[in-house]
Every structure is written in structure tokens, then in C-alpha cells.
């Protein structure tokens, strides 16, 4: 046991990292134990061998050159000032705050006031903030909608809840069949700045692709939405109509050729497989098989072409 302990600590002994009592204990043991004495000798020798690689002192020239270069660098460097720190390191800024209790009180008051305000909105009912679409309520004029805040669907039901802004935030509830809900979804799919909301609306709209307006909105999303996730969702909704609707097919071909996202292109390619025999699809496939930059698309296009019956 003692020998084991010595072997574990001999390196620390050589590096002068053992406390005095352990050091004394080790020395006492080594004086009596030949094996451990040999281990200490080996460790010391190895220590000496490693020290054969010298540590250079930087030459005065190197020090001087480094200092000069640093001075030049400091001329242009900007120290992080208060505003910079406030913006980029709010954590450090907050840690410094010495008036934490006052801040906590202020946050509490603001939170309390906010809570009262919200309760007033919900229960005080200044009228039309929350309106229901279950009745034949008048649809909001599209021009008056400034943005859609959120879209949620109650799980397992057809009930959809949309929060949208006109001059102030309003809320509409109803099923997917409601005209107002559909109108808001169509608006959200095209106009919203928040891609999460666009995604939700496109997702819901894919449940109603028979509606010509809905299909148009999906084609629009596929062509113009900046978010690849939204475009993929729109693709999924349109997939079933690729056989019967030439406009859908064209949109898919356009996505296949021009979309910047390889995932969208691959999905478009997959959805176009059932209509591979179509002349427009076939010519696009040939082009892709020949010269597309994406290797996967190239090889998939070749495979699809090989599986198609020859007409020529």
C-alpha cells in the first residue's frame, strides 16, 4: 500500500508539489524501500531528460519588434466602453449593479403593472379585442391587418386561435372552415415577418389544399418564402396535386431547378417522380442529370431517367 502511494506521488514530489508532511513521509519510505528508491531515481532522471529541451528567452529584438507592433495595433484598437459593454455583455453589466434591491423592486412594480394591464384587457373587455369567429362576425378587412402574432391549433380539434394586429392586437377563433380564419391564414402565409407564424399558417393551409386560394398561397410560399422550412411545408401540401394541376407542377419544377436549399430541391424531385414522363419534367431531369452542381440531385435525376420508359 505504501509503495503504491509512493508511486502515485513520486511525480508530485519531483515537481515539489507535495505538502511537507507527505514529502517527509515519502522520503522516509524511499530511504527504506529499494524499489521505490529506484522509481524515484527513474522519475528524476526522466525529469532531467525532459529539461534538455531548452526554454528560449525571447531575444531583445523580438521583444522590441513585438512591442512596436502592439503599439501600432493599440492605435487603432477601441477599448470596450460602457455602451459597448452594455450591449454586448449585459451579464457583466448586471453583475456590477450595486443597487440590485432597487432594480428588483422596479422589475416587480413593472411586472405587477403589466399583469394588471393584461387582466384588464382580457376580463375588462373593452369590447372587440377578443372576438369569436364562430358566429357570422364580420371579417377584418385585409388592408387593416398589420401582422399576425401567432397561430395555434387546439390539439385533436379543429379549433384554431389566431392573434393578429390591426391598430391593436386582436384575436380570432374558429375552425379551419371559417372564412375569416382562412383569410387570416392566407394573409399570414404571404405577409408575415415571423417565419414561425408563416410555418404554422402554411401547415394549417395544407389541410385545405382543395381551396383554390389556399393552393395559390402554397404555390406563393413555395416560390417566394425566404424560409426553407416554410417552402418544404408548402411542398408537402402541394405534392398531391402535381399530377392534376399543371401550375403546381410548374411551381415544383421551378423549385427543383432554382431553389437555393438542397433539401427543398430533393423533396421537389421526389414529388415529381410520379410525373416523370411529362415532357417538361423529363427535359428538366435531363438537364439536371447532365450538369447539376449537386451530386445527389444529379445521380437521382439519372436514376429517375433510367426508370422512365423510352419514347424516342
Amino acid at each position, binding site marked *: 500500500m505504501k509503495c503504491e502511494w509512493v508511486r502515485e506521488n513520486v*511525480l*508530485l514530489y519531483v*515537481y*515539489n*508539489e507535495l505538502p511537507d508532511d507527505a514529502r517527509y513521509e515519502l522520503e522516509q519510505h524511499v530511504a527504506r524501500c529499494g524499489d521505490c528508491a529506484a522509481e524515484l531515481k*527513474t522519475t528524476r*532522471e*526522466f*525529469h532531467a*531528460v*525532459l*529539461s*534538455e*529541451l*531548452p*526554454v*528560449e*528567452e*525571447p531575444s531583445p529584438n*523580438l*521583444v522590441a*519588434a*513585438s*512591442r512596436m*507592433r*502592439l*503599439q501600432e*495595433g*493599440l492605435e487603432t*484598437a*477601441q*477599448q*470596450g*466602453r460602457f455602451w459597448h*459593454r452594455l450591449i454586448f*455583455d449585459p451579464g*457583466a453589466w448586471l*453583475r*456590477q449593479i450595486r443597487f440590485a434591491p432597487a432594480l428588483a423592486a422596479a422589475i416587480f412594480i413593472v411586472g405587477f403593472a403589466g399583469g394588471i394591464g393584461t387582466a384588464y384587457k382580457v376580463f375588462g373587455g373593452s369590447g372587440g379585442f377578443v372576438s369569436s369567429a364562430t358566429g357570422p362576425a364580420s371579417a377584418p378587412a385585409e388592408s387593416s391587418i398589420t401582422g399576425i402574432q401567432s397561430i395555434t391549433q387546439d390539439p385533436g380539434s379543429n379549433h384554431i386561435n389566431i392573434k393578429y394586429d390591426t391598430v391593436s392586437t386582436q384575436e380570432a377563433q374558429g375552425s379551419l372552415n371559417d372564412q375569416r380564419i382562412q383569410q387570416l391564414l392566407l394573409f399570414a402565409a404571404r405577409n408575415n415577418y415571423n417565419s414561425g407564424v408563416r410555418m404554422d399558417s402554411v401547415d394549417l393551409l395544407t389541410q385545405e389544399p382543395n381551396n383554390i386560394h389556399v393552393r395559390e398561397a402554397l404555390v406563393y410560399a413555395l416560390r417566394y418564402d425566404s424560409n426553407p422550412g416554410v417552402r418544404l411545408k408548402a411542398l408537402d401540401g402541394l405534392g398531391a396535386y402535381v399530377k392534376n394541376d399543371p401550375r403546381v407542377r410548374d411551381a415544383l419544377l421551378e423549385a427543383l431547378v432554382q431553389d437555393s436549399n438542397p433539401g427543398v430541391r430533393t423533396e421537389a424531385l421526389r414529388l415529381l417522380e410520379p410525373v416523370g414522363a411529362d415532357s417538361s419534367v423529363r427535359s428538366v431531369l435531363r438537364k439536371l442529370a447532365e450538369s447539376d452542381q449537386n451530386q445527389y440531385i444529379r445521380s437521382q435525376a439519372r436514376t429517375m431517367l433510367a426508370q422512365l420508359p423510352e419514347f424516342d
Partner: protein
Amino acid sequence: MPAEAWVVPFAVGESSHPVVRRDPREEAGGIQDPQLRGHMAGQASGRIDDTLLVREAQRGNRAAFEELVRNYDQAVLRLALHLTGSEPEAQDVYQEAFLKAYKSIGNFRFECSFYTWIYRIVTNLCLDHLRKRQVRKEDAPVATDASGEQYDVLDQVPDGRSGANPERDLMRRELGKRIGRALEKLTPRERMVFELKHYHGLKLRTVGEVLNTTEETAKNTLFRATQKLRGALADMR
């Protein structure tokens, strides 16, 4: 930790290498060699005023920051030079480290010593360097000088011990090369711990502080590194 606590010189262990110029803070631990004492005097002066200098630098006083640089820059260069084996690369580490320190000195909260803080910046930059080097698997210890010429680092080292004995000099160089190669095989973190402990003489507690880890972890890493080196240099003992 109280703000001024770090001004008290903390223990920095003894370096294993006789040529190494130790950190001036070692003076507190009592250095016996008068020659080494003389070496240290250069960068030791004014270090006691670090707190004031840091405060001044935080207020935007560039002269104070430059004073801090002069206090620590030789130690920084020595570490970077030994780790990178290249003067231009050591200069890059130096430049980047002090510019980073200058830009973020406003965030320095005196939770550790300025020495630990600047070493932390330098070791992080060196670790990045070592990781990149591991990918490149460069041959050690060939280095490049400021004009881009390659040379053997060990050829540049004046050897006070071998005197006029060319045979011994050659053997020593060969040995140095082999050690260099063995060190290259360590992981960047093992290399850093070993470097700070063996070649720069830092206490394991300080190594842990610098590398943002515990003394125990630093100790285990040192064990691992030593085991690997013993394996790689088995025939040299």
C-alpha cells in the same frame, strides 16, 4: 475574493529548466540563485502597482496599459515561443493576446490576478494554435524566422553547459528534437499543462486557475502527459 487580494504574490513553483527565467512572483517564495534574482528584477519592478495600473487602464489610460504589457510581455513571449517554436507565430499570439486584453480590460473584475487573466488569454490562443497544428501535423521543431526562412529552433539556442564540446552539443540537439516530437504527440491540453508546469514552473493550483479547471484535473492531466512522454521516450532513460 476581495478585489485587492491578487496583489499578494501567489506561489509559482520552481521551473525545471535551468535557463528559464522564472516569474517574478517567485521572489515571494525565496529564490536562492542570485543570478536568477537578477534576471527577475527587470520585470518585477512596478508589479506591485498592478492594481493601480489596471484601474488606470480601465479608465482609458493607454500608458498604464503599456506599463502592464511591459510587466508581462516577456513571460508571454517565452511561453508562446516555446509552444509554437516560431518567432512570427509567437509574435502573433503576443499581439492578439494583448489587443484582446486591451479591448476587454474594462470587464476585468479583479476576481483573479491580472497575471492569471493575461495567461488565460495567452493559453487559450496557444491551445487554438496547438489544435490547428495537430490537424496540420507539422514537423517539430522546425521553425520559421521573421524573413520566412526555416530553421531548427534548437540550433539557435546558446548552450552554456556543453562548452566547446561539439559531440555533446549534437547529442543534446538530437535529444531536444526527440523531446519536441514526443511533446507534439500530446493532446493540446496535456501539452499546455505540461508546458506550464515543467517548462514554466507554475504551481498546479495556478495551472488550474489559468486553464479554468481544478488543481486535481491539472494534476491528473500532468500524470497522463508524463506517462505518454515516458512511453514515447522510453529508450532515452
